[in-house]
């Protein structure tokens, strides 16, 4: 049977998780049911609030994304970011290599100082 999903470190009890899911779903749906259902369908109340304007299909030309709040920060630190981004090659071996290298340097510093 598949009531226990074995992992390298232990197991997941499938039935316990299903029971948890059922209880969580019950409370979620109950809380959702407490919300308002008296909005008027087919009117503006169905639509997204966009400061009273029509919601644009493609808002790229007229909206400024929230991460632009960090523009100055990113601009000022661009030289450092450039190095950091270039270091993110996507290869786990590289990251483990950085870890080993930094650990080695720190260990050497501790031993020598």
């Amino acid at each position: 049977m598949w009531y226990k999903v074995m992992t390298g470190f232990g197991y997941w009890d499938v039935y316990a998780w299903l029971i948890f899911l059922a209880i969580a779903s019950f409370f979620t749906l109950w809380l959702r049911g407490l919300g308002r259902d008296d909005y008027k369908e087919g009117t503006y109340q169905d639509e997204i609030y966009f400061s009273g304007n029509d919601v644009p299909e493609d808002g790229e030309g007229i909206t400024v994304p929230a991460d632009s709040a960090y523009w100055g920060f990113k601009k000022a630190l661009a030289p450092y970011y450039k190095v950091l981004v270039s270091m993110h090659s996507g290869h786990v071996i590289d990251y483990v290599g950085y870890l080993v290298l930094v650990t080695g340097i720190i260990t050497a510093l501790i031993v020598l100082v």
Partner: protein
Amino acid sequence: MKIEKYLDIFPKSLWVFLVNSGSCNGCDIEVVATLSPRYDIERLGMKLVGTPKHADILLVTGPVTRFMKEKLERIYAQVPDPKAVMVIGNCGCSSNVFYKSYNLVGPVDNVLPVDVYVHGCPPRPEAIIEGAAKAVLKLEEKKKALLREQSELVKAGAE
């Protein structure tokens, strides 16, 4: 289960959405002063919200410009029932010195049904708080009327 059906008083704090339909910003500054520590209307539960969909009251400042008319109507439509409209300042109440201006639709009640008028140029925070208290009474009346309508519909359906 609808908890609010079993409560006699207004079931939640007053949430307000502020629209500037052409104001000089003087009234908006007074609204902010109403929220600031000296008057601190949030201690009474009233707070500004970021979307009309969460609001009970639409607070409008300034006369309605032609540019803002359609937007104001849409925002009003997005406030769920029961809702009340409160106009802050002389310009919103009567267009004030801008009366007959070429680019105005007029005072707010030319566009929306207004429940509470707060006069002043700009009105003091005390006046805005008193207006909010009057708006609560209006809202309670509207809520009762809505519940009455609903129960009559249910009765008619049962018959």
